[in-house]
């Protein structure tokens, strides 16, 4: 039964609370290992959004143990493990298997498991990109929170967003240096790894386990509701009271004077008899009306004040212009010395109010801007992830092609050297017919050697 699936350096603990099949593992001492330079740059911008991101752990999902949403296309299911393919390969008899599955099968006999044709490792190639894309798009259920995501982003979801996935305890950042892990849901507070007393059974246990203890484990977790005598959880008593059918409740028109009070379940009986049943809605309507009128009045007062200030300002300008002065002096720059009386105050008031409104508008804009920035970073990250993957793939393909070209060139060079030896001399002394034929080959070999000179010197 022992499965030596994880190397010793990885501390792996399955989600034994939610799923017995160990659909995922997380690694507490290898976090942030996956990142290159771009990764860390992105990580930094994200941590400004999610303050708790430094607590993230790396998660590995066992794609054969997770549940898939809906029915998976039979063509995407491996005939050996009966799961949607993991790292699929294509045989030259046109069958697709998981790489691990066909490796296993081939170690027992070099036959294709489906059609029993001879098959060897050499004739197996990576499945077409299209198959990978289809697999990436499969709807997979998160082993922690149960929500459905595309299979390709499941690990990222667990690592960075899933509220039920494990992260490092926030206590690891403070000086107490807690080394435990907690669900992300609980990581927004401080470290909860301290002993506390259950208010129901008075047992002492770690605060972090309190919630699940009070909900499922505590022997004194339930009580009978004081009103309806239905068994309820003590920790949910308040929520229950808000909807308990036997709790006394006042009539909904109580604020307009109805004195009636009855159990919640009987309240509907009173609704018809209530003396306030026709006044209530009316009063409600009037209340809305009045509040809207009040708003109107407030707006009007504000505009009025603004107008008054404006008038005062203009009046002061008028007074200033009554004096014998140039028109130039009316400009705002000369305002302070021109208006030295009480009109200065009203002028300043007006400017100040203008400034205030500008300031509030500015703060509003900057809030919107930072909001937008956050959204933008998220979007950018979501979009760059697949591109990055594709880039890595392209890069590897390009390297392979490079190697091929290099090999071909060297091969061609050697062949040419062997064929012609000191070919330039031969060509110049050869006959006219032979000279032409050779000449074209020589120019070709020159061109090749020119473009591949650096390669050759390296070799």
């Amino acid at each position: 039964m022992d499965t030596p699936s994880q190397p010793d350096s990885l501390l792996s603990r399955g989600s034994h609370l939610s799923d017995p099949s160990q659909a995922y593992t997380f690694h507490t001492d290898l976090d942030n290992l996956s990142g290159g330079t771009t990764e860390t740059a992105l990580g930094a911008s994200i941590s400004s959004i999610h303050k708790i991101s430094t607590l993230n752990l790396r998660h590995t999902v066992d794609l054969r143990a997770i549940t898939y949403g809906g029915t998976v296309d039979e063509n995407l299911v491996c005939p050996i493990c009966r799961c949607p393919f993991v790292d699929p390969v294509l045989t030259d008899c046109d069958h697709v298997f998981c790489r691990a599955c066909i490796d296993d099968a081939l170690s027992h006999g070099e036959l294709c498991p489906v059609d029993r044709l001879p098959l060897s490792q050499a004739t197996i190639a990576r499945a077409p990109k299209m198959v990978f894309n289809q697999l990436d798009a499969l709807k997979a259920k998160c082993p922690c929170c149960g929500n459905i995501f595309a299979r390709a982003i499941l690990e990222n979801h667990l690592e960075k967003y899933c509220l039920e996935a494990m992260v490092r305890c926030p206590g690891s950042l403070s000086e107490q240096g807690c080394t435990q892990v907690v669900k992300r849901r609980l990581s927004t507070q401080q470290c909860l790894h301290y002993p506390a007393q259950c208010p129901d059974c008075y047992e002492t246990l770690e605060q972090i386990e309190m919630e699940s203890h009070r909900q499922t484990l505590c022997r004194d977790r339930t009580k009978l509701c004081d009103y309806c005598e239905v068994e309820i959880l003590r920790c949910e008593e308040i929520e229950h009271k808000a909807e308990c059918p036997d709790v006394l409740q006042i009539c909904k028109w109580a604020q307009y004077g109805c004195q009636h009070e009855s159990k919640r379940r009987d309240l509907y009986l009173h609704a018809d008899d209530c003396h306030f049943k026709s006044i209530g809605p009316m009063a409600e309507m009037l209340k809305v009306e009045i509040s809207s009128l009040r708003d109107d009045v407030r707006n009007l007062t504000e505009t009025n004040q603004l107008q008054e200030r404006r008038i005062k300002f203009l009046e002061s300008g008028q007074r200033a212009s009554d004096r014998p002065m140039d028109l130039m002096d009316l400009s705002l720059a000369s305002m302070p010395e021109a208006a030295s009386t009480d009109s200065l105050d009203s002028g300043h008031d007006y400017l100040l109010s203008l400034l205030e409104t500008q300031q509030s508008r500015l703060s509003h804009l900057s809030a919107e801007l930072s909001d937008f920035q956050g959204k933008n970073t998220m979007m950018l990250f979501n979009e760059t992830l697949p591109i990055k993957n594709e880039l890595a793939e392209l890069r590897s393909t390009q390297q392979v092609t490079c190697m091929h070209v290099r090999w071909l060139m060297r091969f061609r060079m050697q062949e040419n050297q062997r064929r012609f030896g000191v070919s330039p001399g031969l060509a110049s002394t050869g006959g006219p017919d032979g000279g032409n034929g050779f000449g074209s080959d020589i120019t070709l070999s020159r061109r090749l050697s020119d473009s591949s000179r650096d390669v050759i010197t390296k070799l």
Partner: protein
Amino acid sequence: MAFASKRLGKELAKIHGSLPPGITLVTAEGFQEWLLDIQVLDANPIYMNKTFRLKFKFSPSYPIEPPEVTFLNTADRPVPMHPHIYSNGIICLDLLGQQGWSPVQNVESICMSLQSMLTGNTKNERPEGDEQFVASNRRRPRDIDFYYHDNTV
């Protein structure tokens, strides 16, 4: 064990959903041993109104390695008469041997193969040398190299 149990879990889920006619799951406790009942559906007089019980034993390397499949012999579940089935329940079928096995086979497909093997049979007899084989054999079925004489039955 992990791989085998995952795959068997999938098969079990499918079996609980639906099974072909004439095949019923008896027990599937754990991922080591399952019991299934099979019946021959057409009117073959040799197997009429009879039910046979199959025992599947899975190794940790299932489905890369074949399961060990035998007929059980109980009061109401006899071992079917067939020139390829020994009276101790051991089945001589290439599909179940190391050579004939393929990991794409599964419990359901094995049951169906056995069903059709019985359906097509007309000889109400045991394999040659049955008594001697049953008396002397101490090996496990998968270690026996059967000579798969003819594929017509």
